[in-house]
């Protein structure tokens, strides 16, 4: 299963996603980016059924961008974005063929100057968390987060904690996930950073 981890620190949200695209026993790609930028301060990271994932994420991306254009360049807050995503998935789960997509939405609310991390699964379950993950990586990472996470961490400290998680995953995961892409959402916007 793909790796998706996120945590909020004092001045932003950090999101990490694995680079490997797997299908059965094969790794098809080692530079797969499982995130889409929704607007200048919101990023969605996703896992799930291949095919559904990109379709869904790009559908969300298009709708959020449409909203930005219609609302005269006023962007939706992280909460509004997450609510929209949740609503789509909650509607989808009762349809003939539901999207099997789990997502983390990293955001930074420019109005309140607060970072946020939204955990949304394919059923339409939505919670805001200080840190979270989807799939098997959640089992390995949450315990590390429980022990070492503090609310007032800096981005550098957050990245150190993320490094601990990735090291643990490299040690325990049965297949090579080809490392992670790390993106930070903060007051400045969204940026990718070099990570090991």
């Amino acid at each position: 299963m793909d790796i998706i981890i996120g945590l909020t620190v004092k001045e932003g949200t950090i999101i990490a996603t694995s680079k490997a695209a797997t299908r059965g026993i094969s790794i098809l790609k080692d530079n797969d980016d499982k995130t889409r930028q929704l607007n200048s301060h919101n990023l969605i990271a996703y896992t799930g059924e291949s095919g559904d994932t990109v379709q869904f994420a790009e559908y969300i991306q298009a709708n959020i961008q449409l909203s930005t254009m219609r609302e005269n360049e006023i962007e939706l807050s992280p909460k509004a974005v997450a609510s929209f995503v949740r609503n789509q998935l909650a509607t989808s789960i009762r349809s003939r063929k539901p999207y099997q997509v789990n997502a983390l939405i990293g955001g930074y609310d420019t109005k309140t100057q607060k970072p946020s991390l939204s955990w949304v699964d394919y059923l339409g379950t939505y919670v805001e968390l200080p840190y979270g993950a989807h799939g098997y990586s959640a089992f390995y990472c949450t315990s590390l987060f429980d022990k070492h996470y503090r609310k007032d961490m800096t981005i550098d400290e957050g990245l150190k904690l993320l490094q601990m998680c990735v090291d643990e995953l490299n040690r325990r995961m049965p297949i090579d996930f080809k490392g992670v892409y790390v993106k930070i959402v903060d007051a400045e916007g969204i940026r990718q950073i070099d990570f090991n």
Partner: protein
Amino acid sequence: MSDPSSINGGAAVAMVGKDCVAIASDLRLGNQSLGVSNNFEKVFQFGDKTFLGLTGLASDVTTLSQVFRLKTNLYKLREERSIEPQTFANLVSSTLYEKRFGPYFIGPIVAGLDSKTDKPFICGFDLIGCIDFAKDFIVSGTASDQLYGMCESLYEPNLEPEDLFETISQALLNAVDRDALSGWGCVVYVITKDRVVKRVLRTRQD
């Protein structure tokens, strides 16, 4: 295992006291055995003294709490007063029965005081809206068996607000500690004629 009403876990309970009612829930949200959030309240306020507890599939808990927020807000605009617990119970029932053949996987409970008579009111529902009126207590969620046991042994009629708080808290606390899918903190509302008191309880974190 893949029963929708026990994927996320959670428990709620309501009790009647002397001129007061109490409603409480745990705070856990999980994915099967994995705890995801310890801040997921399952009690919502929809009027001055009307409360709804919602356990079951977390997706439906969120969906329904939003549906009822919409419906009670429109009700308030039409009627120029907030909804009574009795009326709200009927609203819940009919809303759930609309989805008779594709139901929401939830176990709602309603608690409140009538604004005119200050009479306590509690009731529970099954997932398609059948109302279960009770004059003592109502339980719901994955710890409902445990809650029945605790309530049957701790409950007594005509408790004062402070004693009712103690009773409902102990009932919930000890019930969720025997359920792997519930716990991780609790929230208790005690509703009396002239005020609503919310208390957050500390519990075992395992």
